[in-house]
């Protein structure tokens, strides 16, 4: 959990000072896909407030966006299998696209594609490390 919190801090600092890519959103997306726990919501809420404060956005805007998108991801879990690469890629792309539109960031398509690629890569690393016992489900055929 501490590792997750430190990672959130690092990515939030990068997102507010260096890059426009929604790194924090991608992290929470991956966390929702692999962990599927309710603790994601309060952490996303607090992180969203911090991001809004640093980027001079109206407080609550990022928190609302994160909450809604994470809820949609978890709703999808009831009907479909979300721990797959195609789902992570599509969800990252659509979510990033919506993020850039909502926060008026230019180069929407290019950045959404880059975000989806980063998210899929990080999911691949998570699965490869086998921290969440989803290797087989994600398509890693062993033996």
């Amino acid at each position, binding site marked *: 959990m501490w590792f997750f919190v430190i990672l959130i801090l690092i990515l939030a*600092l990068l997102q507010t000072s260096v890059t426009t890519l929604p790194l924090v959103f991608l992290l929470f997306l991956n966390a929702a896909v692999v962990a599927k726990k*309710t603790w994601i919501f309060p952490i996303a809420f607090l992180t969203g407030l911090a991001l809004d404060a*640093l980027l001079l956005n109206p*407080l*609550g805007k990022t928190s609302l966006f994160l909450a809604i998108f994470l809820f949609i991801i978890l709703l999808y879990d009831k009907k479909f299998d979300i721990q797959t690469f195609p789902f992570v890629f599509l969800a990252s792309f659509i979510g990033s696209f919506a993020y850039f539109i909502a926060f008026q960031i230019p180069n929407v398509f290019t950045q959404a594609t880059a975000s989806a690629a980063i998210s899929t890569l990080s999911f691949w690393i998570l699965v490869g490390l086998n921290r969440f016992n989803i290797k087989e489900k994600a398509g890693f055929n062993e033996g």
Partner: protein
Amino acid sequence: MAKKENFTSVFLFFAILALIIFTLSKLGFLSLPASIAQKALSPIAGSVYSAFNFFSNPSKDSTISKIKEENRGLVKKIVSQSVLQKENSALADQFATTSVRSQTLLTAKIVGAPSFIPGVSNPQSLIIDRGTKDNVKVGNAVIYKDNLVGKVTEANLYFSKIDLITSPSFSTTVKILRSQAAGVIKGKGEKQMILDNVLQSSDIKVSDIILTKGDQDIKGIGFPPDLTLGKLISVAKKPSNLFQKGEVVSLLDFSNLSTVFVIRY
């Protein structure tokens, strides 16, 4: 089913809370807590930006950087000379008057400049460490060595957000230094701007310097005249169109800036 309801209730709680906070923030009730939160978090963000700026631009003393700096200095001299000539002729005529308002330049350090690919892409906005407690207001012009950087679009107690001149949401009235032709500049994204609404009969050509025309209101909010916006790199003149167009590139490298100046009144 129980798991789904669990998600739903947690989601509803935080979504409603976020909505309430968003509404209060929009109405201006949370500006102080937001300022305090940013004041607490920004030193780390500022350090990250400074460190990244330092490591992504190791060749700041290279020949190209020096030439760019010299070029900016020369453009500044050309503009100053042109303004002096105009003032001299106005004084000599005794009919034209120039109103000079006292200006206060406030030094501001850049603590954030998010861009798509850091060090490669141009940022669209900057976050500076000056806010309303330093008398910074929304609409104030921001410059760097007589080059217009952008304008303040958001300001809280300690920090402000600047929309750059290359941002798609930026536009202002401009004039050409050489021919005094008037036009409108609009940001295009990345490092370029579009010069539009220039009459077909106006004389513009590649390498012309573009200056602000001046659109300050009675409170001093807006852009003072004769600030450099950039250089014309292409001209599109079609007789069938009402106006000429052109592409303008800024003389500044926004991704390398660490300090800017806010014009206050």
